């Protein structure tokens, strides 16, 4: 008697489903599944209206089908075909069942399924709870007038007819005789089903689905990425698009959609012009920037204030009669559509309409990168580094106070000399450095008023002197939105941005990294060496930092040999300190270390100079050496260079704009030109070629 062999491999699904219509019917839940819903067996409705050899994990109220995570790092579970007869095809063992042809046809063979068991005791996986039986068996007769009446999905609350004291990983049904008809075979699960253990293991360990190994549709797995976010900060502009103001607070919404779909759409005229739209039957949660978490179904979310009243698009949109709003701190992985109708249409038919922000999304494929998200701007917090008062003391001085100090030192009294014995021959040696600052660095440091300079045990009393108590504050110098001009590729190709920071060389900013984003400049100052570190922050991410020197280090003239040597050392230090400070001073935040590092570095040069008794030759090395950065523009600014372009009028209407869609042409309107059309038309070859040529040249739909 003739028979036919059906191979169970994913690229044979069409034949499998035509022969076994009850198999592989349930879409896999891959995002934290709570139930396995594995079932295998035959439904013998044709002869006796009863289940036969029907195994499942549905359990009962006592023995629930319940998955739980063993630890937070394990997120996947699956099952695979087991104990089938196999045939070696192209080096792969392919499971199969034979169908004996008759009236009716019947099955020959065996079929089994195994829940994936990375370790024998399931300890490393999401697992079926240990105190339940992994599989139960239901073999009680059940009457039904149709196949649908008899199938397991209508009787998932049946009690098990079999129990075991320990979990069972594998089950199989023996196929022979009564009721074993192809149309009655059920192999199904609510978790992914793979062709063999090897493929299942690869999925568990990597999240990757190897080609032709999984019986679930790839679309099922795309639901893994159901975490959405939107960040915005609403800026308001007048009719000339000049800045008017912005919200005090930024907004962030994290949505854990649990398989639901989230879309957004624009509602022009509203101050908060993005409305979010959830679709799906799953319960979901969402968290605001303050960490408050809310939960509910899609409707609850759609009606929530967070979905409607905080989100603003990143391009100018009209607000009120004569103004605009836009998101100044804007980022999302949610597709935003031009209007509500488009958003709703995209849920039903994603290819039918393009979002207006296709390039804003993070297209990182699954599995997601490891690590946690950080907001580096908020992590960039001011520090309090105490000044090394006592060992060395940094004074902030007016010029008048400095003159008074100089007078005292150069006409040193015996009292002063006694007080300064520790410094050798000259009281000048008590001075480690003197810098002139052309800018007010008070916002970066904390000072304490004092009555004068303390030199050893001697005090030079004067007004206009403060002690620098601590430093390390990070101060925001300003922010600017980098607004696109064209809202097309020219914003990236035709614009150059050069950032000028006081006392530093200009730096180029990549348009792709700053376009439509908020550029913020923050800085911190080392008052011991008058070094400044700028932090360039883009949308609250610290993009890079720039170190620069400012002010002038003043040589201190000694009135003896030691003082002269001191002067030379100061000069050498001034030549080398820029590099040394960056390397040691800022890294350690220890001014003593800076001094020691500089002296050590300069020691060899100093020895040479001392031997040759000549002045060091001064030269400027690098960008702004000390003493050269007294005069500069004292505010940051951007230079924007725009290459002008010509866009033909009505280009969009006449010739369209580029796109990269593969879609049914009927989904589009207006001018459309396309290549590689998949035509289904009953016509002669020459006319087919005419149609293809016409589509290539362009049609107006």
């Amino acid at each position, binding site marked *: 008697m003739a028979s036919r062999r059906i191979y169970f491999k994913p690229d044979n699904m069409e034949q499998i489903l035509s022969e076994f219509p009850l198999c592989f019917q349930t879409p896999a839940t891959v995002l934290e599944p709570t139930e396995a819903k594995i079932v295998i067996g035959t439904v013998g409705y044709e002869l006796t209206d009863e289940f036969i050899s029907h195994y499942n994990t549905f359990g009962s109220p006592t023995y629930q089908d319940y998955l739980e995570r063993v630890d937070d790092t394990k997120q996947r579970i699956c099952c695979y075909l087991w104990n089938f007869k196999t045939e070696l095809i192209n080096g792969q063992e392919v499971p199969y069942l034979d169908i004996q042809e008759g009236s009716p046809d019947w099955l020959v063979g065996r079929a089994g399924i195994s829940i994936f068991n990375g370790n024998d005791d399931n300890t490393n996986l999401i697992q079926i709870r240990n105190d339940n039986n992994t599989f139960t068996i239901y073999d009680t007769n059940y009457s039904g007038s149709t196949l649908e009446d008899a199938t397991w999905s209508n009787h998932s609350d049946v009690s098990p007819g079999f129990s075991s004291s320990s979990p069972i990983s594998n089950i199989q049904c023996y196929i022979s005789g009564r009721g074993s008809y192809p149309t009655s075979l059920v192999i199904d699960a609510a978790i992914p089903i793979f062709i063999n253990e090897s493929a299942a293991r690869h999925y568990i360990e990597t999240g990757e689905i190897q080609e032709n190994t999984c019986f679930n549709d790839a679309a099922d797995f795309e639901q893994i990425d159901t975490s959405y976010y939107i960040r915005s900060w609403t800026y308001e502009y007048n009719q000339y698009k000049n800045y008017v103001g912005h919200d005090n607070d930024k907004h962030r919404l994290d949505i854990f959609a649990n398989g639901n779909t989230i879309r957004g759409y624009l509602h022009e005229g509203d101050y908060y012009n993005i409305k979010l739209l959830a679709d799906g039957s799953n319960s979901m949660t969402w968290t605001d920037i303050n960490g408050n978490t809310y939960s509910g179904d899609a409707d609850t979310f759609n009606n929530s204030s967070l979905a409607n009243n905080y989100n603003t698009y990143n391009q100018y949109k009209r607000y009120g009669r004569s103004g605009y709003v836009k998101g100044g701190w804007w980022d999302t992985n949610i597709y935003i559509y031009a209007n509500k109708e488009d958003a709703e249409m995209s849920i039903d038919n994603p290819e039918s309409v393009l979002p207006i922000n296709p390039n804003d999304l993070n297209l990182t494929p699954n599995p997601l990168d490891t690590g946690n998200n950080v907001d580096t701007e908020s992590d960039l917090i001011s520090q309090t580094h105490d000044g090394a008062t006592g060992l060395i003391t940094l004074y902030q001085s007016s010029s008048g106070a400095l003159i008074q100090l100089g007078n005292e030192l150069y006409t040193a009294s015996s009292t002063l000399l006694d007080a300064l014995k520790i410094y050798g021959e000259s009281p000048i040696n008590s001075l480690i*450095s003197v810098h002139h600052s052309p*800018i007010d660095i008070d916002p970066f440091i904390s000072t304490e008023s004092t009555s004068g300079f303390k030199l050893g045990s001697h005090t030079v009393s004067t007004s206009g002197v403060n002690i620098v108590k601590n430093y390390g504050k990070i101060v925001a110098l300003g922010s600017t939105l980098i607004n696109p001009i064209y809202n097309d590729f020219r914003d990236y190709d035709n614009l150059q941005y050069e950032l000028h920071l006081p006392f530093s060389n200009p730096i180029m900013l990549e348009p792709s990294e700053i376009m439509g984003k908020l550029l913020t400049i923050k800085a911190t100052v080392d008052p011991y060496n008058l070094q400044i570190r700028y932090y360039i922050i883009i949308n609250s991410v610290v993009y890079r930092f720039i170190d620069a020197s400012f002010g002038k280090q003043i040589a201190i003239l000694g009135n003896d040999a030691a003082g002269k040597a001191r002067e030379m050392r100061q000069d050498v230090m001034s030549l080398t300190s820029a590099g040394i400070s960056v390397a040691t001073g800022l890294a350690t935040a220890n001014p003593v270390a800076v001094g020691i590092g500089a002296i050590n570095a300069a020691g060899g040069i100093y020895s040479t100079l001392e031997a040759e008794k000549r002045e060091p030759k001064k030269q400027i090395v690098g960008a702004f050496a000390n003493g050269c950065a007294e005069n500069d523009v004292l505010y940051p600014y951007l230079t924007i260079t725009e290459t002008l372009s010509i866009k033909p009028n009505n280009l969009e209407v006449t010739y369209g704009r580029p796109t990269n869609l593969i879609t049914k042409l009927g989904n589009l309107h207006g001018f459309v030109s396309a290549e590689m059309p998949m035509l289904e038309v009953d*016509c002669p070859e020459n006319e087919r070629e005419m149609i293809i040529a016409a589509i290539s040249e362009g049609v107006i739909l």
Partner: protein
Amino acid sequence: MAITVKFYKTSSKDKVVDKVLTNQVTMSAMQVKETLNISEPVLKVNYNAALSSYNYAYIPEYGRYYYFKSAPDVTIGHEMIISLKIDPRKTYATAIRNCTAHVIRSSSNYDTMIPDNMIINKVNNKISQRKIGNGFTRANKYYVLIGG
């Protein structure tokens, strides 16, 4: 063999799939040659001066729409010879709409971030500066580091 032909006027662009057809005139026509090319038929109709301002036709029997290749020729026998050429866009409008293809340019659903070679750059630049915040306050202060 006589066939029925519907003649129209249209001012729609060549590329338009759903051309607007007006002033329909239905006439009976004969083929001129022994063999008729359905994609580019040449027909003979009784003289009708109005046809000289027509430019479009539909032959129900063939289910095809046609352009006039040129103005009709008038014979000595007071007949008009009309050369037609199939309009694949209108004839196969449904097939075109149902066709799935890789869309290169579109008036709808386009992506402005894909470079467009129909927009060309000029050689001149425009340069502007934008201040960021108020910057530093000018000062005249000294920082004196003293041992002890």
